C-alpha cells in the first residue's frame, strides 16, 4: 500500500494549519459565509439539514487497518460513533461541529488521511475497482495510476475553481467495476495491438439531472502521457465549460454541446503542445509509485483448502455467504471477500465504530492489513486465504457483518436522502430498508440472483439510480414523497441509462412495485441463469410496465 513520505505528510499537515486559520477567520467574522463556503467545501465540510457533515477522502478506496481503526476512533470522538461509506469510496461523518473540524482533520492527518477536495468545483477523489491488485481478471493494478492522479490533482493551482466538480475513475480490468463510463473522465486500461498497456480515455459521462454515457475521446493513450492528456482535457473544460448555469456546468454538457469531435480536436491540440513537457512521466517515477503497490507476501498454495471445502459442505449458511460474498483472486488459494454493509433493515453504507474496528482487526489477521471501500457502499478484504474463510465468516457474523447478499436485491445503493441532505426531495434510506426487508428470505433472494437497485433522494443522483437495474428517484409531488422507477440501467462495461417506466408512485406502492417487477422477471426469464438485467434487455420495458400499472 502507498505510504506517505515526508512530502505527503508535510502537505496534509500544512493543509490542516491553513484550514484552522480559515475557520478562525470565519468564526471571528473576518470572512463571510459566502467566502468561507468554497474553502470549507474544498476541505469536505458541508452544511447539511441538521449539522455539518465532514467527508473524508479514501483515495481509490484503499485503507490500512490502522487507518480504519483511526476512522472509528474519530467517529467516536467527533461524531456519534458511526461512519457512513459513500458511492465515492469515501467516508462521511454526519454530526460534526464547525469548531471541531480542524482538530478532526489534525487527527486524520496522523493516520495519513484528509478531506482535501472531497467537495467543491475541483478534481475529486479518484475512484477505482475495489478489487484492484487482487482480481483474477486484472490487466494491471489501477491504483498506481490513481495515486499518480491523486498527487497531480492535489492543490492543482489551475483547476481548483472549475465550472463544476470533476470526477475521474480508473479500471484495470475489462470487467468494469469502477463505472468508468459514467464519470467526467473514465480511464480503461487495455492492451493495444502491439501488446503495450495504456488507457482508453472516456470523457463526458455522468449522472445527475442530465445523465450521459461517456464517449471515447482517445482509444489508446500511452502511460507516460496520462497527466499531459488529463491536463489537456481539464484546460479545455476550465476555459470552455459553461458557467452560466450550475446545472449545465459539468463537462458532459460541454461535450454534448460542442460534440465529441470538436472536443477531441481541442484536447488533442492542447495535448500536442504539452506532451513532451514537464508532465511527461519518467519511467523511474512510474516505477517508484508502482513499487509502493507491490503485492503482499502471498503463500504459494495449491488445490482447494480442506477447511474451506469442508465448511462449504457442512455449513449451509457459510456456503451461501461464500457463494455471494467472495470473488476470484489472481493468487491461487486466496479469495477476495466483500463485507456487506447492507444488513436488511439498516441504512446502506453505515458502519458502527465497533464494526469498523472489528473489520480493521480482521483485516490485520486475514488480509495483510488491507481494506477496500466499494462504490456500492460495502467493504472488502482483498487478500484472504481460502483456508481462513470459515473462521473469518464466523468472526464477521459476530458483528452482524456476514449478510450473504452481495449483488442481490437487498444490496442497495442509497444516498442519505431527506433524512440528512439539504438538497433531497424524498427519503432514500427508509425505502431501501423496506425493500431489503422484502427480500430478506435468502431462498428467494438467491433465486432472483444479481439485481442492482439504486436509490436517489433527488435528481442529483448521488444514489446512481440512472444505472440501477432498477433505479428509484425520489421526487416531490405537492409536498408528498413520490418515487419514479427506471429499468435497465447499468454502470458496467455495457453501461446504460435506465428507462423511465411510468408515473411516480408513493413510498408504499414503490416497495410493492419492486416486488411486482421481480415477480414479472421470474416469470419472464428464460432460465435461472438469465439475470434481471439480461431479461430486461431481451424483452424490453412493456411487460414490466404492464405488470406494475395493471392494477391502476
Amino acid at each position: 500500500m502507498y505510504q506517505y513520505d515526508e512530502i505527503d505528510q508535510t502537505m496534509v499537515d500544512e493543509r490542516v494549519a491553513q484550514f484552522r486559520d480559515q475557520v478562525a477567520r470565519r468564526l471571528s467574522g473576518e470572512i463571510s459565509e459566502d467566502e468561507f463556503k468554497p474553502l470549507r467545501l474544498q476541505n469536505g465540510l458541508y452544511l447539511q439539514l441538521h449539522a455539518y457533515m465532514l467527508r473524508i477522502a479514501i483515495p481509490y478506496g484503499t485503507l490500512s487497518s490502522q487507518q480504519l481503526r483511526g476512522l472509528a476512533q474519530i467517529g467516536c470522538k467527533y461524531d456519534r460513533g458511526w461512519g457512513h461509506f459513500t458511492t465515492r469510496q469515501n467516508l462521511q461523518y454526519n454530526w460534526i461541529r464547525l469548531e471541531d473540524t480542524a482538530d478532526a482533520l489534525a487527527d486524520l492527518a496522523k493516520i495519513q488521511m484528509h478531506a482535501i477536495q472531497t467537495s467543491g468545483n475541483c478534481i475529486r477523489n479518484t475512484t477505482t475497482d475495489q478489487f484492484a491488485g487482487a482480481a483474477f481478471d486484472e490487466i494491471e493494478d489501477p491504483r498506481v495510476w490513481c495515486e499518480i492522479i491523486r498527487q497531480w490533482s492535489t492543490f492543482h493551482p489551475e483547476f481548483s475553481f472549475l465550472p463544476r466538480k470533476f470526477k475521474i475513475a480508473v479500471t484495470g480490468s475489462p470487467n468494469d467495476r469502477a463505472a468508468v463510463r459514467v464519470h467526467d473522465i473514465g480511464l480503461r486500461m487495455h492492451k493495444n495491438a502491439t501488446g503495450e498497456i495504456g488507457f482508453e480515455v472516456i470523457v463526458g459521462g455522468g449522472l445527475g439531472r442530465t445523465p450521459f454515457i461517456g464517449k471515447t475521446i482517445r482509444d489508446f493513450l500511452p502511460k507516460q502521457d496520462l497527466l499531459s492528456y488529463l491536463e489537456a482535457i481539464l484546460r479545455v473544460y476550465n476555459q470552455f465549460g459553461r458557467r452560466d448555469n450550475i446545472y449545465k456546468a459539468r463537462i458532459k454538457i460541454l461535450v454534448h454541446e460542442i460534440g465529441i469531435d470538436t472536443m477531441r480536436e481541442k484536447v488533442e491540440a492542447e495535448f500536442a503542445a504539452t506532451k513532451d513537457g514537464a508532465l511527461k512521466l519518467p519511467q523511474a517515477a512510474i516505477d517508484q509509485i508502482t513499487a509502493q503497490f507491490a503485492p503482499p507476501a502471498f503463500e504459494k498454495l495449491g488445490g482447494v483448502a480442506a477447511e474451506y471445502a469442508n465448511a462449504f459442505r457442512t455449513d449451509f449458511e457459510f456456503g451461501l455467504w461464500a457463494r455471494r460474498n467472495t470473488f476470484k483472486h489472481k493468487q491461487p488459494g486466496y479469495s477476495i471477500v466483500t463485507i456487506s454493509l447492507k444488513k436488511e433493515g439498516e441504512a446502506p453504507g453505515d458502519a458502527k465504530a465497533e464494526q469498523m474496528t472489528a473489520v480493521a482487526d480482521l483485516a490485520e489477521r486475514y488480509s495483510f492489513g488491507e481494506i477496500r471501500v466499494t462504490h456500492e457502499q460495502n467493504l472488502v478484504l482483498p487478500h484472504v486465504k481460502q483456508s481462513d474463510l470459515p473462521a473469518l465468516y464466523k468472526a464477521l457474523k459476530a458483528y452482524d457483518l456476514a449478510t450473504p447478499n452481495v449483488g442481490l436485491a437487498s444490496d442497495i445503493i442509497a444516498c442519505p436522502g431527506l433524512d440528512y441532505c439539504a438538497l433531497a426531495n424524498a427519503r432514500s434510506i427508509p425505502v431501501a430498508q423496506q425493500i431489503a426487508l422484502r427480500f430478506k428470505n435468502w431462498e428467494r433472494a438467491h433465486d432472483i440472483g444479481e439485481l442492482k437497485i439504486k436509490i436517489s433522494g433527488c435528481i442529483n443522483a448521488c444514489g446512481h439510480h440512472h444505472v440501477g437495474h432498477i433505479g428509484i428517484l425520489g421526487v416531490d409531488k405537492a409536498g408528498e414523497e413520490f418515487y419514479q422507477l427506471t429499468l435497465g440501467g447499468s454502470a458496467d462495461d455495457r453501461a446504460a441509462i435506465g428507462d423511465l417506466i411510468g408515473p411516480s408512485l408513493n413510498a408504499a406502492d414503490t416497495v410493492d412495485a419492486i416486488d411486482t417487477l421481480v415477480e414479472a422477471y421470474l416469470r419472464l426469464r428464460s432460465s435461472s441463469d438469465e439475470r434481471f438485467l439480461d431479461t430486461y434487455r431481451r424483452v424490453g420495458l412493456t411487460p414490466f410496465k404492464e405488470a406494475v400499472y395493471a392494477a391502476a
Partner: protein
Amino acid sequence: MPLLKNGHIVGEDAFQPVADDAALPASGAVLVSYARWQAEKDQLSGRNSPLGISLPNTVDVLDFGPEAERFDLIVLSFPKFGDGRAYSQAHLLRARFGYTGELRATGNVLRDQLWHMQRSGFDAFEIPREDAAAVFAKALQSFSHVYQPAADGRVSALKQRLAQKQSGPQKKEAAE
C-alpha cells in the same frame, strides 16, 4: 485599490487606464481594453510607451497569445472568485506563449486564492486590503512542496523524489 506587485504594495499604478471612448494621452503607459486593441492595433502599436491590456476571461488565449509579447501588462479578471477561467489564461500566457511582462489579477481577488494565482503565473494583484503584502507573503508559504508542475516552474513532488533517490541536483524546470 491597493496594487500588490512582486509582493510589495505599489504606491501608484504606472499604467493609466483609458476608457474606450476617451482620447489616448500623447505619452505614458496606458491600459486599454481588448476591444480597443482589436479596433486600434496600428495606432496602439505605434506608441512609444508601455502598453497594457485588459483581457476578458472569455477570450481564447490560443488566439490572443501570439500578440502577448507586444504588451508590458496583461490584466486578467476574476468576476467572481469561483470563476477560474483566468487561471488557464495565465498559465497559457506564461507557459505556452512565453509572456514575461506583468500579469495582473483583478476582480474578486481573495487572499485564499493568491497561492493558486501566483503558481499559475500572476505576479501582480489588485487586492482591496491594507495588509495585502502580509497576506500574500503568508499565502506563498501555504505549502512547502508542489504536486504538479505549473507556470511557476517549481519541481513536482514526483520529480523531487526521483531527484532525492538519485541524489542529483534539483533544477527548476519549464512548465512545458
